[in-house]
């Protein structure tokens, strides 16, 4: 069973570590993903920064990286992590590959949401004399806020998943807790506890995301 005297503080630390990894990843990866998505959208044939080479390169990289299982991706970018973060183990070392993967996946999600904006609305703005840059920021991005919020909410779950895997490289967090105490020490109750906390975190994020998206949809 659970010995709360030791497990209590342990759990608190794990929650803190998980939240730390997830939040930092969501912020940095979220911004990078938004930029990649906008760049993909803008370099598309017929758009403002139309650039077939850049568009194809970005597309290729995303298609290449996205299907790599995260645990393999960690070791793949390991040398780079070491160079950028200074170490390849620990919470900060975990955040690096998490951020990269998040940026790549989000890039695609953002691009798809921008492409999905009704071309009629874009045409209406252009007909008013709005410049293409202005159309991108005032209309395309603005009209996609609600679906983007849902996209970010969706990614959040993936990031929590990645944070658990990151336990393997000493990132700590709830995944690490479940593995070291639950799995390796045959304490199933700890595993259940870790699951319960993750479910709560994910559900809260989902609720918040849905709430914000709904407000932005104005329905």
């Amino acid at each position, binding site marked *: 069973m659970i010995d709360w005297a030791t497990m209590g503080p342990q759990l608190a630390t794990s929650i803190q570590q998980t939240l730390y990894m997830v939040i930092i990843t969501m912020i940095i990866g979220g911004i990078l993903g938004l930029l990649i998505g906008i760049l993909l959208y803008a370099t598309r044939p017929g758009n403002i920064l139309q650039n077939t080479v850049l568009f194809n390169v970005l597309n290729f990289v995303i298609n290449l990286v996205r299907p790599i299982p995260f645990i393999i991706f960690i070791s793949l970018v390991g040398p780079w992590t070491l160079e950028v973060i200074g170490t390849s183990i620990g919470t900060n070392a975990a955040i690096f590959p998490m951020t990269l993967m998040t940026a790549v996946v989000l890039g695609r999600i953002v691009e798809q949401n921008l492409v999905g904006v009704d071309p*009629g*609305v874009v045409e*209406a703005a252009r007909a*008013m*004399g709005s410049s293409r840059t*202005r159309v991108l920021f005032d209309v395309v991005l*603005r009209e996609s806020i*609600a679906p983007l919020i849902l996209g970010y909410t969706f990614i959040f779950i993936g990031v929590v998943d990645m944070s658990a895997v990151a336990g393997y490289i000493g990132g700590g967090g709830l995944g690490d807790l479940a593995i070291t105490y639950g799995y390796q020490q045959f304490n199933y109750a700890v595993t259940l506890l870790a699951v319960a906390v993750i479910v709560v975190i994910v559900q809260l994020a989902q609720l918040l995301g849905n709430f914000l998206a709904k407000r932005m949809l*104005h329905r």
Partner: protein
Amino acid sequence: MTSIVSFRDVSKAYPGRGAAKGKPVHALRDVTFDVQKGSITGVIGYSGAGKSTLVRLINALELPTGGTLTVNGRELTGMGEKQLRGLRGGIGMIFQQFNLFNSRSVAKNVEYPLIVAGWPKEKRAARVAELLQFVGISDKARQFPSQLSGGQKQRVGIARALATNPEILLADEATSALDPETTTEVLALLKRVNEEFGTTIVVITHEMHVVRSICDHVAVMELGSLLEHGHVYDVFAFPKNPATQKFISSTIADKPSPDTVARLQQLHPGRLVSITISEAPGSGAGSNQRDISSLLASYPAVHDSVVYGSVTEIAQRPFGSLTYVLEGPDHDVDAVIKGLSQLTTVQQWPAAAVAGTDDEGAQR
């Protein structure tokens, strides 16, 4: 009247897409015509005729690939992107699907073109209030588009299009997504815009009654070419081009179809003729119906009865077609038809024996 938009041999070819790559699509071919300042000009034609292309050239959403296009005295060819944006800002546009910004409230939708045009904030609020008042939706200012009916959405669209006091308003199938009653209201609003502000309006439509109720000029298009254009009444009542005649009779539906002709011939013995009711050409006063009635009355041996048709007005002038069955001695019926031909356009339907073949009847 002076012209505000003038097309001179304007062509537009799009590069072919997909399977047709390398083979350009000729959306417009050598179009020459003028839109009169202050007019409401209708553009009609079957799907794919090039109507939207024609209108999108006026506000430079597309650029011509041939010919010269002059809008508001300025030639479009050679203009830079910045100048083109300025030009677009002075032309309003409304759409079939309204194309409102769903993430912005009604008031913010109407405000947006003012922001683009660089109006100071203090002036914007007053202008938005004035516009919403004009289109009759002041109470909806804080609502979002998804909370409005189709008619209300189009009113927002119109307010937004008029925000910067444009000299030209383009409407691409602006009432096609609305029910008949709402269509009438929106058309009345457009008419009011034209009358109160003198805005030149170009409306694309496939609904004949739109042209009938608000347009004073009309242009008929087919397969990228402009077949005919002029005053609505002249084009509708006396179409010169056979394709225009066909388009008009198919959309007005006041002439019987081949099926109907066959049925009528079975029901009624006698000769079937369709005649055009209009102002007698050149007379400029009253319909030709009076002369037609007198003519028929002067042949008592010929019994006439109307079996199909309708008479209405276009641009407040009489317009329609009536189909008669004429019964009597052959000689007299021939004389009546000859007399009618001098008064109006007569279409004789072939006798019952040949009905049902592809022969559409002779036009005199």
